[in-house]
């Protein structure tokens, strides 16, 4: 799977630079956009060279996509918040987070090349994940917009669930790889659905239900959806049993109904989705503004900086895709969706080529997380499904989200490095093999 991606990398950076160059006209200021553009190009190209140096056999094509999406996000955040009265400039913060994310990715690349070690600590991962989520219930945690997702650690605030879900994916990958054979074997059936043995299924269900329960009490609907869907998909891939999917869907229907009945904020979200026109100035406002702006973009968009997506509350985080659709139009937004699809495709391919079950499941779990997150939030802002607050990977503003996404990509890269190296060695004559 050895790849070189210098040309796509340069293309992605050129597109980002073009975006910043456009901002020169929009903001009518020459230097800041160029500084941002140069800084960004420098950071990402260094990252690319680092990956090529340390992981020569990895599927480095992921990087141009990361570059394109993160760059697009930075341009949009710059456009939405830089030098605009009454709005805090978030572009600088985001630029710093991109640097931190790149650092985190290099850290993974340098120190987790032997990532299989992680599977030995899979129960530790569960404890870490629960610990992270539980932090929000300590005095350190605080609420934003009614959801208790944040932890204040002095200099930085972060969203623990962004990292908890990576830890949990590692756990599920490790556990399911170990137990997949016994779990696929059925011991009894219930109403025609064959059920696995409690003994092996138990820990999975426990971790699954536990994390889900905590997040629901956090009122973090978006993450709940991911924490629900990703382990289920992993279970399906590991065992090949459709029964899990059917069972999961039933559980989902039941759980959705329960949360709908129990929590006001869920009811509000669903009602705003079903009929936003009823309360266009309050509960329906955000989604309607999003749709108006998306429609305003038309085929080719209003042009960068010429849209009005600043009318959408939280536009730089959850609703950043509305800005993309508004200002770059159907053409630009489809291109962005295509970039997400390519990332998903490369991720799936890494899973397909991985040598062992745990690696396969980890690569798939991370890819599924990425794909589901994208589908859930873009589906939400386009009113395809009820809105659940969650970030668009790489594009949205947010430190935890950016760093988390970079770590996710780093893990995919080290997985692809291993299978890539093995493939390269098989091509060598036997005496040259190490």
């Amino acid at each position, binding site marked *: 799977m050895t790849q070189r991606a210098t040309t796509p990398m340069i293309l992605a950076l050129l597109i980002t630079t073009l975006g910043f160059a*456009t901002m020169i*006209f*929009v903001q009518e200021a020459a230097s800041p956009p160029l500084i941002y553009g140069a800084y960004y190009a420098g950071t990402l190209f260094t990252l690319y060279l680092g990956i090529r140096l340390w992981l020569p056999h990895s599927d480095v094509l992921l990087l141009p996509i990361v570059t394109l999406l993160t760059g697009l996000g930075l341009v949009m955040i710059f456009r939405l918040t830089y030098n605009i*009265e*009454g709005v805090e400039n978030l572009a600088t913060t985001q630029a710093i987070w991109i640097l931190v994310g790149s650092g985190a990715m290099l850290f993974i690349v340098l120190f987790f090349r032997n990532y299989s070690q992680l599977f030995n600590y899979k129960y530790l991962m569960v404890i870490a994940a629960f610990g992270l989520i539980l932090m929000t219930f300590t005095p350190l945690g605080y609420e934003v917009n009614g959801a208790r997702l944040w932890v204040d650690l002095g200099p930085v605030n972060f969203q623990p669930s962004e990292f908890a879900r990576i830890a949990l994916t590692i756990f599920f990958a490790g556990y399911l790889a170990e137990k997949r054979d016994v779990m696929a074997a059925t011991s009894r059936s219930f109403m025609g659905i064959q059920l696995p043995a409690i003994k092996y299924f138990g820990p999975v269900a426990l971790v699954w239900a536990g994390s889900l329960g905590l997040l629901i009490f956090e009122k973090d609907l978006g993450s709940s959806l991911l924490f629900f869907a990703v382990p289920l*998909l992993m279970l*399906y*891939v*590991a065992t*090949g049993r459709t029964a899990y999917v059917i069972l999961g869907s039933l559980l989902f229907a039941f759980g959705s109904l329960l949360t709908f009945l129990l929590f006001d904020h869920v009811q509000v979200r669903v009602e705003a989705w079903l009929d936003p*026109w009823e309360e*266009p100035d309050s509960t329906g406002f955000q989604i*309607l503004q999003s*749709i*108006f*702006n*998306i*429609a*305003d*973009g*038309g*085929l080719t968009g*209003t*042009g*960068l*900086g*010429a849209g*009005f997506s*600043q*009318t959408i509350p939280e536009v730089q985080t959850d609703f950043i895709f509305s800005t993309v*659709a508004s*200002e770059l*139009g*159907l053409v630009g*937004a*489809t291109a962005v*969706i*295509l970039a*997400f*699809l390519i990332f*998903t*495709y490369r991720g*799936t391919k890494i*899973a*397909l080529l991985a040598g062992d*079950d745990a690696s*396969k499941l980890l690569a*798939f779990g991370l890819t*599924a997380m990425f*794909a*589901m997150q*994208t*589908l859930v939030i*873009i*589906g939400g802002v*386009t*009113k*395809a499904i009820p809105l659940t607050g969650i970030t668009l990977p790489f594009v949205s503003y947010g430190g935890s989200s950016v760093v988390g996404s970079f770590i996710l990509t780093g893990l995919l890269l080290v997985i692809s490095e291993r299978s890539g190296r093995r493939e390269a060695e098989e091509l060598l004559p036997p005496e040259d093999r190490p």
Partner: protein
Amino acid sequence: MNIHLRRAFYLFAAGFVALVGMLIYWQVYARESLANNPNNGLQTRRSIEAPRGLILAGDGKTVLARSEGHKTDGGPVYERIYPQGAAFSNVIGYWSVRYGASGIEIAENSNLSGVTSDPATLDDLINQVRGGRQPGNNVELTLDPELQRIAYDELGQTVTGRGSAMAIDPKTGEILALVTSPSYDPNNLDDDFPELIQDPAAPLLDRATQSLYPPGSTFKLITSSAALKAGVRPSDKFFDPGYLDTPGYRVFNYQGKDYGELTFAEALAFSVNVIFAKIAINEVGPQLLYDTARDFGYGDPYDDFILPVTGSGLGYPPDQWVEGNTAQIAFGQDRVSSNVFEMGLVTATVANDGVMMEPRLVREVRSPDGIIIDRPAQSIRRRSLDAGTANTLNDMMQGVITTGQLTQAEVPGVEVAGKTGTAEAPPREPHSWFVSFAPADDPQIAVAVMVENGGEISAEGDAATPSIPIAQDLMEEYLKRGDR
């Protein structure tokens, strides 16, 4: 395991395709209806966040409308300023976030608003790609600011202050003035609008194009055309006993005069209703009179004109006319209805050898940096009369001024051709009409003026009507500037 991996990927891919489908739904299918949704404030924001183009008068200098930016928290907001105020507002219209738009502002909106227009120059394209707020294109009108101002001021000083006027270059179809009175100040529209729509004087109504009045004796230009086509010669003699009896209706002359024996030319000069009624009944007949009126634009809704026009008409088809109808239609009463827009075109057509030019208000459209984007060419709208008949009528109209001794209408150094009209509008005073063109041998300006209920019943006759001096001032002002 790999087959399930692939299946999961197909599931994700299907999801992404569904998202694109959702985008197509919003951005293509539902786009229009969402843009027009009352909860959607984006279009309004756009209209005030981008400067609209200038509207200029025909001299290329006088600014009729411009956009002025104000700094606000959410970026600059532009306000529309109309430096010339009420005199031009029936043509220019208004551009209000609250009350919509009218006139040139809406008719030329695609040019004036930079945002919605397709790129016409390379600069436009670059501007659009870089997403800057591009200013709109500038629209230069054909209006002569001086003539517009004179007509507006003088109409406002008449007895009723209500009336309208049009001046047009008969050879090119360029409208030099299109005036209504009373009018409104478009600068304060958002505040004034509720009062304006209540005002009984209807200042929002463009009397020049949208109101309809009986044209009175100015319609005799059309009856004369029909008579000439029917073979009546200007020297043919007719007898006027002072009245004409038709079944159920007796025709009298204006102010009850009787003129005895007159030529056809003299009958036009003195505007003798009895003789025109006789000619219409005996020589012309309903069908020819009707067809001639149609040839001059009666019944034409002028849908292609840049401003909304209410078409003139004769009331009912000729096969329903009895003699009494024909008699009254001959001098522009009964149900004949028209306005200065139509009568100005009729006059210009006679002046231009029977050829009606396409009336135009927009001379050219330029991008902000001066590149010409559109320049409508002059064109013929219709051939209403053959040149011989038109020239004969031209001579007869000169006789209206000379034989009829309309000294008020004379312009020093040039021959003027014209026709008065005093259209009955019971129970109120009659409307005062005057249509004219000059110089008669080489017409450069045609004018139609009407003062609502401005006619005075006085011993001096038609000459006292207030529309004549207004028309005279317009012609004199225009012609004194020399070579045109």
